Every structure is written in C-alpha cells, then in structure tokens.
C-alpha cells in the first residue's frame, strides 16, 4: 500500500509540474503582450520597457518559467528600484487588476468553493447513492421508475434557471431564507449554513441525477455477480447482501466520478451557481480575470483548478486501495 501511495503521489507531482508548464507557456508565450496589458491605456514606450523588465518579460521563456516556479516555492520580488512589490511564497504572481498577490485572493475565495463543494457533495453523494441502490434493488418497480424519472428531471434543469427559481420561491415569495451569500463558518456557522442552503440545493439537484443513475447501474451490475448469489446462498439477510456485499463493490466506479467532480467543484467550476447567488468564489475570480485580461490571475486559477483535480484523483486512488484489496496488494 505504501509503495502504491508513493507512486501515486509522485505521478501526481509530475502531472502538476507539466500542467503548470503548459499553462505558463500558453499564457506567456502567446502573442498578446502581458506588459502592454499591465501598462494600461496610456502607455509610453519607456514605461512599457520598465514594466517588461519588472515583470521579467525581457528574459527567455525558460528563465521566466524558472522564476515563476521558484516563486511558488520561495516567494518572489517584482520590480527593482522604483516600485518593489513583495510576493511571499507561494507566489503565483501579482494581479494586474488589483496589484495584490494572486495567491492571497485565491485563498480568500477558496473557502467559498470548499463550502459549496463539501456541503453539496455530502448530500448528493448520500442521497444519490441511496436512491440509486433503492432503484437497483427495486428494478422495474415504482420506486425505480420514480427515482430514474426524478434523476432525469434534475439533469435537464440548468443551474441558472433552477437557481433563479429557487431564489424567487424561497427568498422573495415565501421569505423562508435570507438572501444567499457567504459568511465564513468561523464567524457565524448559522449564517454560513443559511446562506449556502440554496446554492447547495442547486448543485445537489444538478449532480443528484447523475449519481442516482450511476449508482443504479453500478449496483445492478454488481447484483448480478456470482458472489452476490453466493452471499444469498449462505443465508445472509437481504440487507447484508445488498449493503455489505453489493454496495461495497458498487461504490468503486462512483468514487472515480466523485473524485473528478469534487475536484471540479473545488477548482471553481460551479461558476454559474456562484454568479446566480452572488458568491465570490474562485469561479467568479477566474471569469473576472478573463474579462480584465488579468494574466497572472488567469494562470493562477487555471493552475489551481488543475491541482484540485489532480489531488482529488490521488485521493480517489487511495480510497480505491482501501476498498479493493486487489489494488492494495498488487
């Protein structure tokens, strides 16, 4: 297991380095001149050269990447004589738009996405798998048809529509909930919870559909396995057969997809949900940085999303090893 773990982590590190390299090259080697963007609309050639120099853009691409990478590990100082901006490790650059280190902004926005992802994931995973198992066990009967139909309905609703409907119903019409927003959990757990109920609900409805269908089909497949027949032949109660023997095996493909989705969510891909409910998450940060041509922020958010997904996959691999001894002992 240890060897397996080390191998997975090393592979993940390699992937992250490669991703950072690719994103870096894409953003800084592109014909658009970052210095020109940073310089603003009224820009003299001398000012441009100065900025170019302070951003290190007059150096070779390799040196630039090296400095960027070094910045992540050891921090970095931008500019030389006139303006000096300190960017402590891990430094992902200074935002052109706000002149603050990007990493700081990222860390401010991250708890929003983490709360969104964690809260919704717990619900859609438990409810989705539960419904899926129920549907599989009662295949062809009413419970199956209802849960499948419900799942189909959920997947066909777009979050901006669903979110707006929920907002209108729960906040404006019935006034059951306060306007959604993010309050740090350390500050006021109740406000944190109340403010996130609707965003969670939106994400849950969105993902629930897929997880119900996925766990239904996975469970159906497992239930037709020989070892399930063996479990029944031993005289085990139905509940034990389904939960101990069936679910444990059926959960494997779900873990894979879940790892991917969770990475996406944390990485700020729930951007539509964020903007519908006015949450300042990484998704919104990324969108804003694109509209502002804020290259360091674009780079940082892209990299962040990539790292989130890669790390989520490492976790998936570890969970795999815990579930399946054949992986662990191979």
């Amino acid at each position, binding site marked *: 297991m240890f060897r397996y773990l*080390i*191998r997975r982590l*090393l592979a993940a590190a390699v992937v992250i380095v490669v991703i950072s390299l690719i994103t870096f090259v894409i953003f800084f080697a592109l014909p658009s001149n970052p210095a020109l963007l940073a310089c603003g609309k009224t820009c003299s050639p001398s000012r441009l050269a100065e900025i170019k120099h302070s951003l290190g853009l007059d150096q070779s691409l390799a040196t630039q990447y090296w400095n960027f990478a070094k910045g992540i590990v050891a921090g970095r100082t931008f500019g030389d004589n006139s303006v000096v901006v300190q960017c402590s490790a891990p430094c992902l650059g200074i935002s052109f738009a706000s002149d603050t280190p990007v990493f700081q902004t990222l860390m401010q926005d991250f708890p929003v996405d983490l709360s969104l992802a964690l809260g919704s994931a717990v619900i859609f995973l438990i409810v989705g798998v539960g419904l899926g198992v129920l549907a599989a066990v009662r295949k062809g009967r009413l419970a199956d048809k209802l849960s499948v139909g419900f799942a189909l309905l959920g997947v066909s609703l777009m979050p901006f529509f669903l979110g707006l409907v929920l907002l209108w119903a729960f906040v404006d019409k019935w006034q059951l909930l306060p306007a959604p927003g993010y309050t740090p959990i350390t500050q006021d757990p109740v406000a944190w919870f109340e403010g996130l109920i609707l965003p969670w609900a939106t994400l849950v409805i969105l993902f629930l559909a897929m997880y119900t269908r996925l766990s239904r089909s996975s469970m159906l497949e497992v239930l037709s396995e020989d070892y399930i027949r063996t479990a029944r032949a031993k005289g085990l109660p139905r509940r034990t057969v389904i939960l101990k023997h069936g679910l444990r095996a059926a959960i494997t493909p779900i873990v894979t997809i879940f790892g991917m989705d969770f990475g996406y969510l944390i990485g700020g891909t729930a951007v539509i949900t964020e903007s519908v409910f006015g949450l300042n998450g990484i998704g919104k940060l990324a969108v804003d940085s694109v509209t502002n041509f804020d290259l360091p922020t674009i780079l940082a958010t892209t990299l962040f999303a990539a790292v989130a997904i890669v790390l989520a996959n490492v976790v998936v691999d570890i969970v795999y090893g815990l579930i399946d001894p054949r992986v662990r002992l191979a």
Partner: protein
Amino acid sequence: MSTTESIPEQKPASAAQSGGGENLLEVNGLQMHFPIRQGILFQRQIGAVRAVDGIDFAVKPGESLGLVGESGCGKSTTGRLVTRLLEPTAGSIRFDGEDITHKPVTKMRTARQQLQMIFQDPYSSLNPRHTVGTIIETPMRLNGINPEQGHKKRAQELLEIVGLNPEHYNRYPNEFSGGQRQRIGIARALALKPKLIVADEPVSALDVSIQAQVVNLLQSLQEEMGIAFLFIAHDLAVVRHFSQRVAVMYLGKIVEVGNREDIYARPRHPYTHALLSAVPEADPDGGDRERIRLAGDVPSPINPPSGCRFRTRCWKAQEKCATEEPPLVQISGNSAGHLTACHFPEEPSITSRDEDVVLDPALAALEESAGSGAAAESSTGEADKAATPEKSEKATDKD
C-alpha cells in the same frame, strides 16, 4: 538457473526425436520468460515468469503432436511462440526448413501462409463486424492468393468442407453457435492451405456433444489433407484421440514425450501417471486404474523448484531430484522416441498399484479416519502433520 546447461544436455534428445524423416516444425531450446517489473519511478525487472523454459520438439508433416499439461505449464505460450505471436527469449524455431525464430511475420515467405492457428474461444476470435465470407477471404487476399474459382467460391467451398452451409456466406458470427463459430475459425485457417495448424484448446469451450463434432472434423482434415497439427489441450482423452505423438509439459518443461501408446499405456514420468490417474472416466468398472492424488496446485513459474520441477509434488522425490535436473532422454525399457525426464521413473503401466498414492493432506486425513474408526478423533491432527512438510512450497503459489 541451469538453463544454459540444460539445453545442450537435451540436444541429443531432440536429435533422437527427429530421427525418421524431415521435420516440418523443429523447436530447439525454446524459452519464453515474461519479465516482471517493479519500481516506484523507474520500473526495473525483478524476476521473470518462466512460462516456457527450454523445450525441444519436432512435428513431422501430416502428424499431430499433442501438447498436454495443466494451466500454467506453458503449452499455450508454446503455441503462440510457434505461430510467432510472441517473441521468444531464447531458442530456435524452424518451419519447413526456414528459421523463423525472430522473423517478423511479414517477412516470412512460406511460414506465414502455411502455419495457421485455431483459437480456444470461438466468440472473441472472430470479428463480429465482418461477414463469414469476409473472415475467410481476408487471409487469402492479404497473402495474394487468387484461387481459380474466385475468392467467394473458394470461401463457400471451405464452408462446406467444415460442415457449414455455403449459403451462410453473408451471415455474421453472432448468428452462429459456439461449435459453428469454431468451424468458421477452422475454415479461415484452411483458406491458406496450411501445412501445420496450431490448435490451442480448440474444443474446450464447447458442449460435450459439440466437442466430438469438431474433433471429428479436425481428424478428417488431418487425414484427408495431410495437415500436421500441434494440438494443445488440457483434456488428455481428447489429445489421445487426436494425436499420434504426445508431449507432457509441466512448469515450462517437457517432462515426457512419446507415441500415443507409450504415453497412455506405458508412461514413466510420475507426473504423467498422476495426470492420467486423475482423468475421470465414464466407466463405473474402470476401477483397475491406479489412484494418485497429488497435493496442492502447480507451483509458480516465477520461482520454479530447483532440479526436477515436479519434485515438490512427487511421491518418489529424493535429494538428487532437488539438485540435479533430470534430462529428457530415452530411459531403459522405453521404445525409441519415448523420452522421459525423471531420475526415478515409474513402472510402465497404469493399472492399479498395491497402495493408492494420496498426497493431499485433507484427503489422507479423511481417508485414514474413515479407514479406522478409532482414529477418527485424531484425524485433524493427522491432517495438520501431513500439511507441515509442504508449507514452504505452498507459500509460492500465493502470488
């Protein structure tokens, strides 16, 4: 390992085998070691699965050589090596006078056409998107064979030869049963007028009543078309029926080879005895056969036992068996061409012996307690004792 020594040692054996007439297929010192790699960043080789570990045999034109053994003995790997689906680690393969050991399939002139293979699984070996006609014609087209009567006519002829309706030319494999699919596979192999067909477990996936149909078909092909066969199977009765000569493999080595009568009526190697005695016969009166029950399973080919590989399951094993690998030779009392690799060969008979050989600890314990009612209580203790000596060997089949 003593492989470098064992090859020259076995050379005279293979010469003895090929004594009469030209050989169609000649295999010498053939080895296939599949590397096992492990490592965190860089994979390095930490061992090898010695699937085939230095074997010699020859097949004469029109002859059927049966290759029998249990799973993991290397018989299927041998078939794949001969048909060049695998690259051998060492040794040589000569087909029809041409050395094809390392030749890419595309560079082989005659062998490519004249050496065909029939596979075990009639379901996965036919492309489901091609019609039967296409499946049979493709090898002809690829090899630039243009029969006088045209490809379609020839394919229909072949269908008829293998006992299928020529009108089914345009059907797809899924419209056929397992036995019929195996016939299609045979027709495809026949399309190139092969001199040798390597048949890897061609009937083991089929129902009993269908098995016999296919065996009969192969037999008539062998007789009427003079095709030689390398017939690989685990079913000793089928092999006996189909092959004039038989080689018994165990853990990557040939332990005994000879004419059908030698192997089935006068076997000398203890493993051949064990194999034959294990075959269940549908004859309630077949009680005069010897009864040998080995213990455990075949050890791992990753770390085969030293000396004679069968010694860990053999009732006659002595120290010599662990230190010295027995050569595959004609031992005294055997007819020419009957070679056995054993230091302490058995009597050349398969009729029952004075006492059954029961090495399986559980069986021995149960039978002992059944034999003497008083000893029933100590039966588990006996099983324990019997199990002890083979502990070290059993650990190997864990992987």
